């Protein structure tokens, strides 16, 4: 053993002793606190405009949210970017996908053809969920928006060890509507209200 390796070994031993003195462990996994939440809850927003509403199919560990628009408005599609904190939750899947069509838009020219391409996407980038559905054919009529347009899900993250009652951030940071009037050839920015997501 050289002088240098001897010195390194000595330093390592000293560090381990200091760590143990502080009450930690060099090998044991983190133990859950007794107050860790077992699931998540979602309270709908008060807004009657653009909003995310909890779907009845939700479970304590899998919240399904429906995007619903305001009454009296028509459109051809909408995309959202929904922000949360992926250290405290996980974006869930519905039937294996990050988005589930609500059936309000005519996404296919031939709805009976399952192979026809549809502008329906859902994906995750970090803490953001990006979802969208658009009618691809501008010749189709715009549709009323005060119904379930599409759904996405949030999963409880057990290894996040959240305290019961802890609020999990949730907001719609971007929402763009393809409006009924295509004349200006522009999307419209809209504001979508999100409810309150908590650990339970």
């Amino acid at each position, binding site marked *: 053993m050289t002088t240098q390796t001897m010195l390194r070994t000595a330093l390592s031993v000293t560090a381990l002793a200091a760590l143990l003195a502080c009450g930690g462990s060099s090998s044991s996994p983190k133990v859950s606190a007794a107050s860790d939440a077992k699931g998540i809850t979602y309270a709908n927003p008060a807004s009657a405009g653009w909003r995310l509403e909890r779907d009845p199919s939700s479970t304590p560990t899998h919240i399904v949210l429906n995007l619903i628009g305001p009454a009296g408005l028509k459109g*051809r*599609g909408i*995309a*959202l*970017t929904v922000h949360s904190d992926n250290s405290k939750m996980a974006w869930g*899947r519905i039937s*294996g*996908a*990050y988005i589930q069509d609500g059936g309000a838009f005519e996404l296919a020219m031939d709805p009976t053809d399952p192979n*026809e*391409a*549809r*502008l*329906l*996407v*859902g*994906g*995750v*980038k970090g803490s953001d969920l*990006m*979802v*969208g559905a*658009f*009618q*691809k*054919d*501008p010749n189709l009529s715009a549709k009323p928006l005060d119904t379930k347009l599409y759904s996405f899900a949030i999963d409880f993250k057990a290894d996040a060890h959240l305290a019961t009652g802890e609020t999990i951030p949730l907001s719609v940071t*971007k*929402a*763009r509507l*393809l409006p009924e009037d*295509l004349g200006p*050839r*522009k*999307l419209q920015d809209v504001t979508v209200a999100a409810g309150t997501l908590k650990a339970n």
Partner: protein
Amino acid sequence: MPRSLPRTLSWLPALLAAGGLMAAPGPRPAPRPRPAPQAWRNARARQTQRAAKALAAIAATKADLGLGPADELRPSAVFTDDLGQTHLRLQQLHHGVRVWGGDLVAHVDLEGDVLPATGHAVKGLDLDPTPGIPADRARALALKHLGVPGDLTAEPKVELVVYPNPGGPRLALTWDKAKRRFVADPVHTVLGRREEGSHLLAYHVHAEVSDPKGGVHQEDLILDAKDGLIVDRWNALPTDTPVKAVGHSGFSGTVSLDANQSASGYQLMDTARNRLTVVDAHGNATSYPTYHPTTGVYGIAAYDLMGYYNWPYGQHLLYESATADFGNGSQPSYFGYAPASDPAEQTGGVDALFGVQNAWDFYLNVLNREGIDGFGTPPYVRVHWWQPNAYWSDTDFALTLGDRVENDSSVTPFATVDIVGHELSHGVTANTSGFIYSGEAGGLNEGTSDIFGTMAEFYQKGAGGAGSSVPDTGGDWVMGGGMINADNPEPIRWMDHPSLDGASPDAWFYGIAVYDPHYASGPLNRMFYFLSQGADAATGDHHSDFVPGGFPGIGNDAATRIWYRALSVYLTPTASYHNARSCALLAAGDLYPGDESVQAAVENAFAAINVGAAHGEAPRPLVTLADSGSVLGPFFAFTSAGDTARAFSATVQNSADTQVDWTAPDGGVIGPDGTYTAPIRAGGWLYRIEATSHADALERAQGFAYSVNLDLDDDAIQDASDMANLALHYRAVYPTPDYDGRDDLFFDFVIDDLDVAAYVEAFNRTYGR
């Protein structure tokens, strides 16, 4: 490092000794004498056996060619040429499916010895020949995504093929006259996915469409046989570039025409030329008329379309006259096309038929070719088509000559001798080398028509359309020179200096294949000029920096024979410029055996367009790119601020110094290692990338970075809301204006279901499902 000295010095002393630096007509070489008649007849009579011998010889080398047990070489054509050589064209099949680019030509000389084969076989194929979709589904998908409006003029052809994997998107460029720069052709740029493997099973669909607004389209699409995704496509219509001019009368003054007399009068129909001459084993020649396979007409007939567009549904009347006189030298009014019996209406028909007869005689008398297909089958000519354009249709076996409107009054048909010869030569090419109309072969195709169209003009104006040689005087070295006037002072193309049009390159470089064939033809045209007329040492239109000392030419006649033999004997459908050089050298050796000056002329002519080395010169550095049509942030790959860089890679051959200098002339930043960072701009943008050899500043390769960024709202991420742009473009042809007021999104692409599917697939691939 200056590159001129090493090239010049190797042969400059000989040139100086020969008399000077200006290109002077060199001695005209004497062609190889034809074999004795009996020897030729014997070779011709034993053509079948000789072809079988060639086939057996090449079959014995299958393993050397890299072909496996699933590969087959199937004969597709055989003929015996004037020199008594028999040539057997072979098509490679894999599990019985035609291999795209797998074309070989086997040769047997007069004495019966097998010569080395030319062409290209595709090695190492191992594909399952079972398509994922049936042929009728491929047909339907192709028609659905033609991207051009109009009615089908014929039943589309659908063929299962083994196709070279494009490996990703395929760019097609077209020249934007207003912007004076190349832009992406929105219809023919294919935004396909990247596939693994060198080849894939695909459907080739060829469709012809007549469009009331856009004219005739001949569209070729390649669809992945797995699922129908379009992986390649091109517009196969060989046409001329429209130009504007004021009116003239007929182009050739008073001419003598072979016409037809019927019971009611005379017709612009030539029944004298469409005769196939057959020589039997005893040397007896017999001649019999051939007829058009569709019309059944025994004659080269000229029809009047009277300004209609929708052949074959519009008017098309055979030109007729009560007397043996046609035309009056003037042209019809744009607003008043008259019946085909009207003299002014007939003038275009006279020019058209005269041009066809001249080109026919040129091929027959100079090159011993019986018409377009070698069997004397008569084409027909459609005159006064409504478009300012002209084209050849191999399906119709017809030339169509459009009209240029002059000051909103009269019209001028595209019927000069060189233009007619050009279009007819497309038919000859289709029946010989079969150059596809895409890539470098597309440039060779278009250039070949320019070459023989021009030689037909020299034959007419310099030799009166008679005799067995092409003179060096009488014609000009531009296409459509006869249509030049004060309002339209430029020709369609300059053969001797192609870049005068501001778009065509003068020389070959790696990456030229992506150019439209009308521009990719530039180097071949210039090569032919140099081969015939030589190059000047003095700076000017006829100087080449690649062979700065100049060199003598061999004249029109010898140059014509060499290129025709290369075309008809050696070259294959997917040939490149370098293939053209090697085949031209073979042809020169056949025609002028032992004449080193001819070999030198061919080498120098190609060297002057940067294909191969000059005579006596060491091999030049050759710069190639790993990806000439690169895509930066592949389409629908969700480029964001951090995803705009791509590494280009260049290879330099024939030089100890393998370094290159990178430049990005259209913007962006490229580092010394070829890593390119594009500007962050929403929409689709094309950026040229060039790699220039350290060892030789003239040697370069050009590629393109193609950036598509759908980040329409400039928040540095392509997300689901950007997807709305597809909806705004869905099935819209040339929509305006674009979403959010941007002009260059998608290059105005027509979005269809395949694009939607590709977008969703890429989104899912990037962000998960």
